[in-house]
């Protein structure tokens, strides 16, 4: 028997409606954030504090993952090209292209959503369930303006810097494997890297703004819409991380396609 509870069409329909509503509400939150951004004198101290906090949270993990990412790309291209050409070729080019265009922005986004996005969702979610957001309203302060705007600006400014840093770490990782394990002279590797078109680097750099936007909007949204005590905060935090990671990976394809169409990368 099909009932309202087990009808697959109804269940699927509800899920789709729910997802559409979430997307719509996130766009509304983004618009409200932009609205308040233009009308809020920026508190430099609070902004700087947020930026340092976000950077500190992400730097150690970004360093570690990107050094190893660079190392493994160098290793794989090295041995693949030995098999084909009998000598390791184009290592610097392979490391540079993959790190600058994809690995660095995407890995940094994963780390950022896990470290910074989760913290934003948990903090705002706790404020929601303990009625601190209501308290802000009664004291004449809009929570979007007071909480979302500084986090938004800080994330948009910090994340691209982290990506540039991640690029550097990846290149260093590649350098280690190339010179120590594959025994190629460092000048060849460095020439390979510096020979890469600036557009390749810019491809990843522009993408990072989109990723930062996704992560910070999703995390603020999940925090602001938290329901139901400590358990709700846990759920909101997990949901923020998962949703931002999925949206980053999906949007990665489309943003890359657009950038390529404009001849960047």
């Amino acid at each position, binding site marked *: 028997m099909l009932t309202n509870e087990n009808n697959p069409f109804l269940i699927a329909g509800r899920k789709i409606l729910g997802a559409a509503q979430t997307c719509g509400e996130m766009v509304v939150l983004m618009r409200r954030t932009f609205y308040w951004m233009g009308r809020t004198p920026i508190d430099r101290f609070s902004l700087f504090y947020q930026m340092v906090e976000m950077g500190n949270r992400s730097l150690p993990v970004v360093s570690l993952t990107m050094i190893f990412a660079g190392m493994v790309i160098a290793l794989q291209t090295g041995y693949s090209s030995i098999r084909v050409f009998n000598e390791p070729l184009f290592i610097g080019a392979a490391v540079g292209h993959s790190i600058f265009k994809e690995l660095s922005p995407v890995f940094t986004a994963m780390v950022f959503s896990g470290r910074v996005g989760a913290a934003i969702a948990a903090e705002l979610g706790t*404020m929601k369930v*303990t*009625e*601190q957001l*209501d*308290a*802000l*309203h*009664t*004291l*004449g*302060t*809009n929570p979007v303006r007071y909480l979302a705007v500084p986090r938004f600006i800080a994330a948009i400014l910090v994340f691209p810097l982290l990506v540039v840093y991640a690029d550097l770490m990846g290149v260093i990782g590649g350098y280690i494997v190339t010179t120590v394990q594959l025994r190629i002279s460092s000048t060849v590797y460095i020439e390979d890297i510096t020979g890469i078109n600036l557009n390749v680097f810019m491809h990843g750099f522009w993408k990072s703004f989109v990723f930062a936007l996704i992560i910070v909007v999703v995390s603020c949204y999940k925090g602001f819409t938290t329901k139901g005590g400590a358990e709700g905060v846990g759920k909101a935090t997990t949901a923020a991380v998962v949703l931002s990671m999925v949206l980053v990976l999906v949007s990665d394809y489309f943003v890359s396609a657009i950038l390529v169409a404009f001849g960047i990368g």
Partner: protein
Amino acid sequence: MSGPLIRVEDLHKSFGSKIVHNGVTFELEEGQTLTIIGGSGSGKSVLLKQIIGLIRPNSGHIFIDGEDITALDEFELQRVQMKMGYVFQEAALFDSLTVGENVAFGLRTIMEAEKQHALKIARQKLSMVGLQGVENLKPSQLSGGMKKRVGIARAIAMGPEILLYDEPTTGLDPVMSDVVSDLILKLKEESGTTAIAVTHDMKSAYKISDKIAMLFEGKILQIGSPEEIQNSSNAIVRQFIAGSSRGPIPVPRI
């Protein structure tokens, strides 16, 4: 301004299939204090939140100073909210700020007071609720009753025309709850503040109220002066104020 300062008209509110308010109507004159009593979960907090515009009713009207706040947008609502102070049931202090900054918050954001000046007023309001030397502590370092009093200090800091207290004396020792009752009376007498208080503390209710209203099954069962409530002929009201488990109010059987 003639007429009541606060008028609630046929308010309906439900969450999903759960009906909380099913036609709540009452009014309150300027300078008066109304106490709302009622069982746990009867919708007292939800009623206060609708009056300050934190929750929107499904239908009905709430007039503050003649203005229907259910028809206002976010920005117009904020202007009306500035006339009001709200004491949250669980205090809702900002845990990233110090106690002093919490109390000074509204002064800094709404009145744009200069920092030192705002903190000075904050110290003064804190001493009114019997707290001294706590300005630099974080809320997590306070006891439940202290948090409650900081919440009161924060709500009265800007001298609002209307104060909404959600269980201001719950969790305080008997002496301190009498101090808070006195403070509510003092604010009313000295500044003419209009107040709505939710409380289970009947002693405080009799002391501070001009009117007492009992909320039961989504409606105001009875509203009247403390004497009228004390001598009520309604069996439910009588049982509630007597605090008895025997009577018409449904209770779990043990």
